């Protein structure tokens, strides 16, 4: 597709990179080439292997097979400093920063300027940090401890850190996820400048408007394999989506004929000092209510507050017309409200414990007699719900940590269904799981709603929001921006409202 006469040599090339983790083949013979002065967009669903690729490029993981070629020289990236020496730097998706250290040190840790006797030169470090922050348009005092910063500011520090290294390759893993539109515009200007300086950029994003705006090339990953690569000018958005998902969009989601019933949950004026404000919405029987927003918009925080993890400062929630007073998750479970958290490893599953013990944990009172465990009943309860979710495992006493991400998620969902809830809140229910499990979870959600369960689904994936929800609430910076019925809702509306674009910005990106 590319003409070798007009393109320069790639700065970085990956040949046949393979990486396996216990139970998962994360990357399988993947190729990639990055060219100086060009942006290559890496496109793929969650779990397609993008993060693993970033970790290989930055020396955190080493590939099982394949070559990394920098400037025509095969190179081994043994650790993070080797990657830095090879001229590769990255803005990571999760903030890999230090709360107790200052902004300046977070930017320069590992490559701080040295003064006399090889000692660290704090004055110069702070001066340089101020300079870099100014370059990316961030007004942050470099001496502040990082913990005093909000999510967006922390993200800007992460960007500054990546730029503080003299690099030829810049990897950006969803760099705009937590940024406001003005900050995103600053980032675009910066990317243009980096391109002019001849740097090769790998840009990972879910947002197609961004990809079409700034990228010259694209590479599509699906299930750990590279399925396509080429010039952005040769494809349309629909073609990219189809390549990414592997089938046409309309075919993915279960067909639902929902007729939501009476209002079950009413939330009024829910507010929190730092996390969210003035949240009001209704949830009806048999309904799937989607919550869309950018990462860090405050959606999970509202749900965790409804579930009793954090306390709202004021506002009320009513279930079937009765005011709720939920102070702990135990209260919420007793009321029939359950929450399937986004962070499966930390909040959802207890990975070192067996499947059946995970499933019965919140329902132990039903499988025990006067506080004494009855193992046979435990196994029966666990089997009932895991089989309903089509769990793939070899036995019920297998530890959850040995299952694939999708099957771990099934265990967590089974755990919550076993409590026989009335309202189930699913936070990013298909994040990081394979396509097969994804479809199973979606089918299952539709089934639950049809049975009369009320479902709230927090998701950052537009296809999932549009494919599954009856109604959609869009959030930005801790507040509800709008509520829409599914019919007539388009990806453009969601993106614009979630990011807070002005009308002009929208026109530009559409043009």
């Amino acid at each position: 597709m590319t003409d070798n006469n007009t393109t320069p040599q790639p700065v970085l090339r990956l040949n046949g990179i393979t990486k396996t983790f216990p139970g998962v083949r994360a990357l399988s013979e993947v190729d990639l080439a990055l060219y100086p002065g060009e942006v290559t967009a890496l496109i793929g669903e969650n779990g397609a292997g993008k993060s693993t690729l970033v970790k290989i490029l930055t020396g955190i993981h080493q590939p099982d097979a394949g070559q990394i070629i920098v400037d025509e020289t095969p190179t081994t990236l043994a650790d993070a400093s080797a990657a830095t020496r090879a001229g590769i730097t990255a803005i990571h998706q999760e903030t890999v920063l230090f709360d107790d250290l200052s902004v300046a040190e977070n930017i320069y840790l590992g490559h701080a300027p040295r003064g006399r006797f090889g000692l660290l030169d704090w004055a110069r470090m702070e001066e340089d940090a101020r300079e870099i922050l100014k370059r990316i348009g961030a007004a942050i005092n470099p001496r502040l401890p990082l913990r005093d910063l909000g999510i967006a500011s922390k993200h800007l520090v992460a960007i500054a850190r990546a730029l503080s290294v003299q690099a030829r390759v810049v990897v950006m893993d969803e760099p705009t996820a937590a940024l406001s539109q003005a900050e995103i515009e600053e980032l675009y200007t910066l990317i243009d400048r980096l391109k002019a300086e001849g740097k090769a950029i790998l840009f990972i994003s879910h947002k197609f408007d961004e990809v079409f705006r700034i990228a010259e090339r694209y590479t599509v990953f699906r299930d750990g394999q590279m399925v396509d690569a080429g010039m952005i000018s040769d494809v349309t958005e629909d073609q990219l989506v189809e390549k990414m998902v592997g089938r046409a969009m309309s075919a993915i989601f279960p067909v639902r004929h929902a007729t939501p019933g009476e209002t079950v949950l009413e939330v009024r004026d829910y507010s929190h000092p730092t996390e969210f404000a003035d949240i009001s919405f209704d949830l009806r029987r048999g309904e799937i209510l989607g919550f869309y927003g950018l990462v860090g918009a405050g959606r999970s925080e509202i749900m965790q507050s409804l579930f009793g993890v954090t306390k709202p400062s004021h506002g009320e929630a009513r279930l079937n017309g009765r005011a709720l007073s939920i102070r702990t998750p135990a209260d919420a479970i007793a009321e029939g409200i359950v929450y399937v958290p986004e962070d499966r490893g930390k909040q959802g599953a207890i990975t070192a414990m067996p499947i059946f013990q995970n499933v019965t944990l919140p329902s132990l009172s039903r499988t025990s007699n006067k506080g004494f465990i009855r193992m046979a009943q435990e196994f029966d309860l666990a089997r009932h719900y895991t089989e309903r979710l089509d769990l793939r495992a070899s036995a019920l006493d297998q530890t959850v940590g040995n299952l694939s991400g999708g099957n771990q998620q099934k265990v967590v969902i089974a755990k919550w269904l076993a409590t026989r809830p009335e309202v189930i809140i699913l936070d990013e229910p298909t994040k990081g799981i394979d396509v097969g499990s994804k479809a199973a979870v979606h089918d299952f959600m539709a089934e639950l709603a049809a049975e009369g369960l009320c479902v709230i689904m927090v998701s950052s994936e537009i296809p999932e929001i549009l494919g599954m929800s009856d109604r959609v609430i869009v959030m930005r910076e801790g507040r509800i921006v709008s509520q829409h019925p599914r019919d007539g809702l388009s990806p453009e509306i969601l993106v614009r409202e979630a990011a807070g674009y002005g009308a002009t910005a929208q026109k530009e990106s559409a043009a």
Partner: protein
Amino acid sequence: MSLAPPTPTHAPPAGRKLPNRLNGRSARVLKSWEVLLAVIAVAIFFANTWASPYFLDPWNLSDATFNFTEKAMIAFAMALLIISGEIDLSVAGIIALASTAMGWAVQYGAGTGELVAIGVGVGAICGAFNGVLVTRFGLPSIVVTIGTMSLFRGISYIVLGDQAFNGYPESFAFFGRGYVFWVISFELVLFAVFALIYALVLHGTNFGRHIYAIGNNPTAATFSGIRVERVKMALFLLTGLMSGIAAVCLTARLGSTRPSIAFGWELEIVTMVVLGGVSILGGAGSILGVVIAALIMGMVTFGLGLLNVPGIVMSIFIGGLLIGVIALPRMVQLLRKGRLT
């Protein structure tokens, strides 16, 4: 501790139910930490028998049990606490304070019943104090209990200085020196009863399951509706209570109270728990393991004592055992990995 088998993630044949367990009971038992410990215990038993003709004497063996009964009682509660992800280093300080309180009460003519109530009560109050500091104020237990360790024993020093309390009633001595039947001492019976109760609570109740869940992942436990703080509070209280009971036994056995009573026991008790296979990081362990570890430590102390080896040298053995039993399997694993790659 057993290594998980490689996990096939393929679907079971249609229509077949998910089996409860992957391996049979015997396979699971054979791979357990407790079996390794039991083998070590038996080896030490035979080594002792071989080394000293006095070892197998029933009265000698009976005397030897006092080496571990009091510590083991506390170790049971400590095991639960450590499995839940916390620790209490103030247990020996609690013994000192509880014993001092009993000695003080004796000066005012307290009888045996009142003494026991005071000892156990003071222990429970101290445990509750630790629990409140850790659960209500969210402080790290390792630091809090280093503080209360000094505080509790420090109060004993303020009360007693270089003096001692004596004059405990004769009937009180039964708790430390009494025999229930032949060579079976009251303390040994208490030890066995507590071992059974704690094993039942930890392995057979919802409360025990909650302890494991909290130790493995406190956040997920909270999200599963477990009242984490309440469980931890109960465990600190329980550890204090057991320290109070141990204080009654020890004071009765010694017949006097000095502020240095049970000095250094906290580290021995933690060693006993960890040697018993309880993960210091929380989330795993069994009461059976702690029981065997207590027997091992008791036998080593006794056996080497018969050979006139001083106590300090025995501690080398215990310390080496503590590191060795954890380090050896990991070293083997490391070497094997090194050969494969």
